[in-house]
C-alpha cells in the first residue's frame, strides 16, 4: 500500500429507504494517518454512511473502497468500529466478552490475552476483568466497548460519538488514546456533532447535512477560507452597536465575552471605531478564526436555505 492510497474512498454513494434518501451522492476521501471528522447534525446520514463503510448495509449506488479494495471479511478485520448504538452481553464477564469479540476479529490465544490485559490496564479497569458487564457503570461499559474497537490493532478506527456520556477525565483518557493511535500511523474516522472535540482532534473534516455533503477539506483550509470575520469582544457600555445588521451578523455571548460574527463585507475596524466612539470600556478586542461550531451552524443553515 503506497502512501498515496487513501484509507477510505467514498464515491457517489447513495442509499435510499423506500421514499426517503438517507445518503445522496456522497463522495469523500480519508487519507492514511489522519484523524477525519465526519460531522453533521442529527439525522444527516452519518450513521447510515458509517454502516455502509463497515459493510452492515450496501449502497444502492456508488462505491466504497477501503485500503484501495472493495470490502471483504479480510478487510473488515482491519477495521475497528465503535457504533453509536452499543452494548455488551450483560451476563457475560468482561474478559470472556473481550475474548469473544477478539475472536470475531481473528485474534485468539496468547495474543488476545496480552492485548486484553494491556487495554484493561490502559483504561484503568484491570480490577473489573472478571466482573459481569451488568455490574459496570455506563461509563465503564463504554470504555470496554472502546477496547473492543481497538483490541485487534486495526489500521482504521471508526468511532461514532465515542465520547458521549463520559466524564471529562475519561474523555481526556480516550482522546489521549486516539492521538496515540494516530501517532502509530493509524487512521481514525470520528463522527460527532460535538464541535469543540472535533476541533481539538481532527485534521480533516467532512460536514454533511440532509444526506448531502456541505463542506470538506482540512480543518486548516476550512477555517482560513472563512476568513477572520469573527471578533472576540470583552467590553462594557456598548449600547446598541451590536444590533446594527449592516455590521454584525450574529452575536453569541459566553459568560463575560461575546463572539461576534461580522456581517458580510463589514470591516472589523469600523466596529472598533464605533465602540470607541460610544465610550465603551474595552478590555478585549481580538480578531479570531471562526470556531468550528460557528462554521457548522452557518453552513448547516446555509444548506437548508
Amino acid at each position, binding site marked *: 500500500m503506497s502512501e498515496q492510497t487513501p484509507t477510505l474512498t467514498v464515491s457517489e454513494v447513495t442509499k435510499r*429507504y423506500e421514499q426517503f434518501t438517507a445518503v445522496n451522492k456522497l463522495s469523500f476521501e480519508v487519507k492514511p494517518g489522519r484523524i477525519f471528522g465526519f460531522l453533521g447534525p442529527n439525522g444527516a446520514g452519518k450513521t447510515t454512511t458509517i*454502516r455502509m463503510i*463497515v*459493510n*452492515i*448495509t*450496501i449502497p*444502492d449506488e456508488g462505491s466504497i473502497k477501503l485500503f484501495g479494495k472493495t470490502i471483504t*471479511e479480510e478487510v*473488515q*478485520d482491519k*477495521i475497528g*468500529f465503535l*457504533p453509536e*448504538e*452499543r*452494548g*455488551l*452481553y*450483560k*451476563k*457475560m464477564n468482561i474478559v470472556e466478552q473481550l475474548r*469473544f*469479540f477478539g*475472536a*470475531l*476479529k*481473528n485474534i*485468539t490465544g496468547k495474543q488476545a490475552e496480552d492485548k486484553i490485559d494491556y487495554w484493561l490496564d490502559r483504561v484503568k479497569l484491570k480490577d473489573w476483568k472478571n466482573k459481569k458487564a451488568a455490574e459496570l457503570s455506563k461509563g465503564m461499559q463504554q470504555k470496554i*466497548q472502546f477496547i*473492543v474497537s481497538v483490541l485487534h490493532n486495526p489500521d482504521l478506527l471508526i468511532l461514532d460519538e465515542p465520547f458521549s456520556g463520559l466524564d471529562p477525565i475519561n474523555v481526556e483518557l480516550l482522546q489521549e488514546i486516539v492521538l496515540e493511535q494516530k501517532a502509530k500511523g493509524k487512521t481514525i474516522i470520528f463522527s460527532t456533532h460535538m464541535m469543540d472535540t472535533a476541533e481539538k482532534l481532527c485534521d480533516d473534516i467532512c460536514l454533511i447535512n440532509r444526506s448531502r455533503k456541505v463542506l470538506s477539506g482540512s480543518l486548516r483550509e476550512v477555517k482560513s477560507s472563512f476568513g477572520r470575520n469573527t471578533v472576540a469582544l470583552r467590553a462594557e457600555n456598548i449600547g446598541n452597536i451590536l444590533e446594527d445588521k449592516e455590521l454584525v451578523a450574529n452575536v453569541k455571548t459566553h459568560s463575560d465575552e461575546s463572539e461576534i460574527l461580522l456581517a458580510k463585507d463589514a470591516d472589523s475596524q469600523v466596529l472598533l471605531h464605533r465602540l470607541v466612539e460610544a465610550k465603551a470600556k474595552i478590555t478585549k478586542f481580538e480578531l479570531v478564526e471562526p470556531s468550528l461550531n460557528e462554521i457548522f451552524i452557518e453552513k448547516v443553515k446555509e444548506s437548508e436555505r
Partner: protein
Amino acid sequence: MKKFLAILKREYLTRVKTKFFIIGTILMPLLMFGFPVVIGLIFTLKAGDPTRLAVVDQSGKVYEHFNEELTQNDVKKVQTDEPEQNPMKQMNQNQEERMKQMARSVLGSYVIERVELNGRSIDAVKSELEARLKNKELDAYIVIPAELGTDTKVELIARNVSDFGTREQIRDALNKVIRERRLDDAKIDKEKIDAINKPVTLETREAGGQKQLTSAETIVRWALPFGSALLIYIMLLSYGQSIMAAVIEEKETRIAEILFSSVNSFHLMLGKLVGVSLVSLTQLGIWVVAALLAVSYALAPILLSGGIKMPEINVSVFQLIMLFVFFVIGYFLYAAIYALVGSMVTTAQEGGQLALPMILFLVIGFYLAFPVIRSPESGFAFWTSIIPLWSPIIMPVRIMTQQPPVWQIVLSVFTTAGMGVFLVWLAARVYRVGMLMYGKRASIPEALKWIRQR
C-alpha cells in the same frame, strides 16, 4: 469458519454454564419420575383408621367370598380385566379412568362385620345401621338382596360418598363374587367361560422374513418414528423460546452492529442456531445416558440370572442411524423457524404467538403418518416424505415400515436440511436489514421486502 465457531462456542458455553441449565438438567428427570411416584404415594395414603363396613347379606351366599376379596391383599386380580395390554387403549385412557384405576390398585384396609337379620325386618336392621352411622360407629354398610338375578341391586350407604376409591373397590369385589355366584347357580363352569373368552393371537411375519413379529416389535416400529417426532415437538415447546431469545439478544443489548461489522450475518445466525440447539441436545443426551445407565443397572442382574427375556426387536443399525439423522435435521429445521420468527420480532413473547402456527405443521405431520403407514409406497407417502416440515416425521415412518429406495432417503435429507439452511439464510437477511434499519417489528410483507433488499 473461525468466526462461526467463536459464535457457536459463545452461545453454547454461556448457556451450559448457567445455574439454570445445571439445575434444570438435574431437576427435570426428578420431576418427571418423581411426580408419578408422589402421586402414587398420595393415593396409598390412608388417612385415619380402616373403613368399617357392615354387610347385610340377605342371600347368604356372598359374604364369605366378598370378605375374602376385600381383605386379602390381592387386588391386582380384581383390576386386570384386560388380559393383553393394549398400548392404544392405554394412551387413550382419560384422566378420570386412570385415577379410578390407580385408586383400585391401592388397597384400602377394611374391617368388615356381618349383620344377620335374625328374624328382624330389613327396615329395622337398616335403621339400626343408620343410627350407628350417625354415631360414627360405622363408615358404611351394604345391603345385598336375597335374589342374585340379572339385575341385582346392591345398596351402599356410606357417610362419605365421594370416596370413589372405596366405592370402586367394593363394586369390583361385589361384581366378581356375584358373577361367580350366578355362574354357579346356572351350573356353568367358570374355567370354560374364560377359555371361550380368550383373545385370538395374531401372528405377524414380515414378507420374506422367517421370524415372527412380536407385538412388542410392531409397537417399537411404530413408536420409534413417532417418539422421535414427539421429542422434536416437546423440545421445541421447551427450547423454542430460548432459540428465539438468542436471536433477539443482540437486538435488546444493541450488540448487533458490532457483530455485523465483523462477521457475515449468515454465519452469525447459523452459529447461534447450532450453538443453542447443541445446548438442548446436550441436555437430552445427559438424560438419555443417565436413563440407560439406570435401566441397565437395574436390569442387569435380572437379565444375567435369566429371569426375564428382553423382547427381541428387529431394528437394523441403518434404521436407527436414519432415525437419529432425521431427528437432528428435523429439530434443526423447526429450530430455524423459531430463529426466523425471532429475527422478525423485538421480544420473545411476541415471537411465541407467531411461532405456534408454524409448529402446527409438525402436528399435521403426526396425522399424515397414518395413511402413510397404511400405504407406504403410494405417491402420497413419497411426497409427504420429501416435503420439508413433514419429511422429518414421514420419512422415518417409511424407513421403519417399508424401506424406500435410498435415493428417496437421500433426497429427503437434502430437502429437509436444505430448507433449514434456507430458513437460516432468510432469518439472517430479515434480521440484518430489518432490525438495523427500522428497529421495529416486521410485518410479513415488510419482511418479504427486506429479503429482496440489499
